[in-house]
């Protein structure tokens, strides 16, 4: 085990800003991509249902 406490874990030996800055931005971007994927699919399906009405 590398860490004796949560505080030590978050501090990352003084490199917390760099380590968590990398992981945080990556997590945020992946989350944004997943939301965008869902929105695009929902919009595509909604557009198709709208068109289906007058066909």
């Amino acid at each position, binding site marked *: 085990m590398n860490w004796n406490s949560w505080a030590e874990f978050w501090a990352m030996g003084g490199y917390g800003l760099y380590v968590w800055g*990398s992981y945080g931005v990556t997590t945020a971007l992946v989350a944004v991509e997943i939301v965008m994927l869902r929105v695009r699919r929902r919009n595509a399906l909604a557009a198709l*249902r709208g068109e289906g009405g007058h066909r």
Partner: protein
Amino acid sequence: MNQPTLVIGNVNWFKYASPQTFYPLAGAAIPWFGWAAAALCAAGLYVGFFVAPTDFQQGESYRIIFIHVPAAWMSMFIYVVMAFWAGVGLAFNTRLSGMMASALAPTGALFTFVALWSGALWGKPTWGAWWVWDARLTSELILLFLYFGFMALQAAIDDPRRADRAGAVLALVGVVNIPIIYFSVQWWNTLHQGASVSLTRAPTMAATMFTGMILMALAAWMYSIAAALHRSRSIILERERNADWIGQAARRERP
């Protein structure tokens, strides 16, 4: 228009290139790749933060490697796959190939940005600079612009088939940048270090660090496949909206 055919051993392989066949297959595959990505990511983070020891030179800052290296690998690999599908689309005029290329571009751009971002945050404590105009960093930045250029070019052309062809030419020309990125650390005197992992030598890093990195790389692979399949299904819904089977699928499916 004639359907293209590629018959090898009595199987018409282009059957699988039809959006109608591909759409349900991709839909069934997405949850598997998604859950595999989540499980591999959890395992990789556990190994990376709780099993892999502190680096004796870089302290804890080296733990950025578990994000940085998998993202950099994916950024290059996705580009090659994207250019491959774009090229297949140009050569055989198959609709699905262009859709796959378009579906890969945003995920590739994401990993390229993550590689640059995590690299900057790693460079500051180890080199003392967020950014240097080093061959490795510069060629990776060009890769980000290639992804953006590909997406902007496709977005600017209304006819999807013409957008595919124009994008394919850009993607294929840009492939020359990939070996430049990969070999930049050998060809030039770069601040960026050389490869720690290669196919021909044992990795020059602790086994647990290597395991964490490979797990995260596999997670990035699984995530990229899931994301690209998901996006390609939306692209099929958008582009093939006049096909009968699409209307049926749209009524049947929930978002």
